[in-house]
């Protein structure tokens, strides 16, 4: 492997994205380190999802370089891109499962491209992935429309993890879940990222998620990454938007809760 652990797995330099005359990102720089969980936050319309889609190659940037696992995506040829794409997984907001396939078949889809893998093995591996994301065995036979929102997200995560990627992109993983389901999902992401050595890039609005699992937070504002740092570093940032985001009543409540939990654990 050409990259050493010190190298960032994802490195974005001078990124510019625009839709018509509307400038979404300009001179955006961002690094994601190996093995960390990075949370990207920002107001509505600041282009969090656009950033995720750009890094994941779904949207060509107007300008700038994106280097993933040591490969510059803007200059990479088709084969190099394919090789990189098999090393990341993306979970979309509502799972984006193929509705005509069962959950198990959905998880098997990425495995079909692997030469020599027998259907029985693919099936067994899919069952393992389904079990690892905390879904019951019989959920594998169900169609996405028969699952609840939380289960669909888990199934989407199972599909994203099908090939044991090194990087996982999560788009609002806890949006639309009840607080218990959201907390479970947070712990699931944290547990999986630790046991599989995943690098996680997650876009979220959920302050509890930021507190509970993110190693680092990147704040998107003014068309670029304004600051990055840990939760506690965020609290001392002076920028008005960052201040109101992390000192608002909801942030306070989430922080108090997180501190309460950690001090209880300390006892």
């Amino acid at each position, binding site marked *: 492997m050409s990259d050493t652990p010190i190298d960032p797995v994802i490195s974005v330099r001078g990124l510019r994205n625009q839709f018509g005359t509307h400038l979404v990102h300009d001179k955006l720089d961002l690094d994601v380190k190996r093995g960390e969980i990075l949370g990207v936050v920002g107001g509505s319309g600041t282009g969090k999802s656009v950033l995720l889609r750009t890094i994941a190659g779904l949207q060509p940037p107007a300008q700038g370089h994106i280097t993933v696992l040591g490969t510059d995506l803007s200059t990479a040829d088709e084969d190099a891109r394919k090789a990189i794409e098999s090393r990341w997984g993306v979970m979309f907001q509502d799972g984006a499962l193929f*509705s005509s396939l069962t959950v198990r078949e959905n998880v098997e889809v990425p495995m079909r491209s692997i030469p020599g893998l027998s259907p029985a093995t693919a099936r*067994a*591996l899919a069952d393992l*992935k389904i079990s*690892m994301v905390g879904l019951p*065995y*019989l959920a594998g036979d169900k169609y996405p429309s028969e699952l609840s929102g939380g289960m669909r997200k888990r199934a989407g995560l199972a599909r994203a993890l099908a090939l*044991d990627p090194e990087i996982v992109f999560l788009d609002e993983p806890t949006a639309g879940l009840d607080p218990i389901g959201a907390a479970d999902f947070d712990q699931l992401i944290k547990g999986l990222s630790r*046991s599989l050595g995943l690098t996680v890039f997650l876009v979220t609005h959920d302050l509890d998620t930021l507190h509970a699992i993110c190693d680092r937070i990147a704040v998107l504002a003014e068309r670029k990454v304004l600051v990055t740092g840990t939760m506690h570093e965020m609290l001392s940032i002076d920028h008005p938007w960052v201040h109101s985001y992390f000192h608002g009543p909801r942030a306070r409540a989430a922080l108090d809760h997180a501190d309460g939990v950690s001090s209880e654990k300390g006892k």
Partner: protein
Amino acid sequence: MSSILAPEITIVTEPACTSIVLRGPITIYALGGLEPRFAALPLGTAVSLDMTQVTRLDTAGAWLVTTLREKVEGSGASFEVLGLPPEIQSLLDNVGRAMPRPEAAPVLPRTLVDRVAEVGKGVVGGVGLVLSLIGYFGMFLARLGRALRHPSEFRLTSLVHHCQEVGLKAVPIVALMSFLIGVVLAFQGASQLRQFGAEVFVVDLIAVSILRELGILLTSIIVAGRTASAFTAAIGSMKMREEIDAMRTLGLDPAMNLFVPRILALFLMLPILGLIANLAGLFGGALMAWIELGISPEMFRTRLVEGTDVNHFLVGLVKAPVFALIIGIIGCHSGMQVKSNAESLGQMTSKAVVAAIFSVIVADAVFSIFFAQIGV
């Protein structure tokens, strides 16, 4: 990239113990090659697995090791893994904990009673569907009556809009279709009737078949395909996004606001479309008769007026409002059956088209028998 270094496996089989050495990356890409080797291992002997030189292990590799361990331990022999780095150990533990335990879905044997019950359910469902369609017809009449008493609740703009959508915009396709049918009838009729020297009867053939049956039936079929699907898709997508529920909570009656303008527009427009289809069909027939048989337009007109009873035209046209109601009610009813997912929208739309076309043909057959009985 990790797959450049190929995975290797060495298996040494001794009577007492099988030792396996794995080297390189043991990932999902290596699984196809490794699995048959693992499957061929003799059962019942102790296995020792050396993983000192494994550079990378993913969940697929961990799954392979775990299944082997379960198989060996299941056969009563011992299994040991040598040289495990701690992070690989924790992955193995995690996979071991998550190994799926197949649960068989409860399979109930199908008995005769189940089969009979299924037939019964089908019949009840069918009867229920017909009753519910009749209920929608009743609701349409009731709302129409209410609109007469309270004209302010009636949505005139919506009616005009739907008249344009289902009527005016369907004129080109309906006219073209009917023109071509007229051409085909004249051409086929001519080649058959010429054998008897009865070419001139082609006018009667065209007039009776188009005015009485084909003009209105084919128009209805086209409109069923075009409009029933549009009604179902429009109402269904509103249902899907809870707009119908929102209307109810705002005190707006979906039947009055959505069904009445649509069905009424179809009710008003289908006879007009049928008339246009009749004219276009006769025109196409006359044109072909002129070209193929030399029957001049003048002669065609005379023959048409003298030989064809106006009853044929009335019998055809009287069916149009009934077909319109069938198509409109099926379209609206199917729209309301849409569930909260996109698949059901697609399903109901295609079901609506099939049901509307089928019902129109059934109704046409009933009309035929009826008119034959009363001798019109």
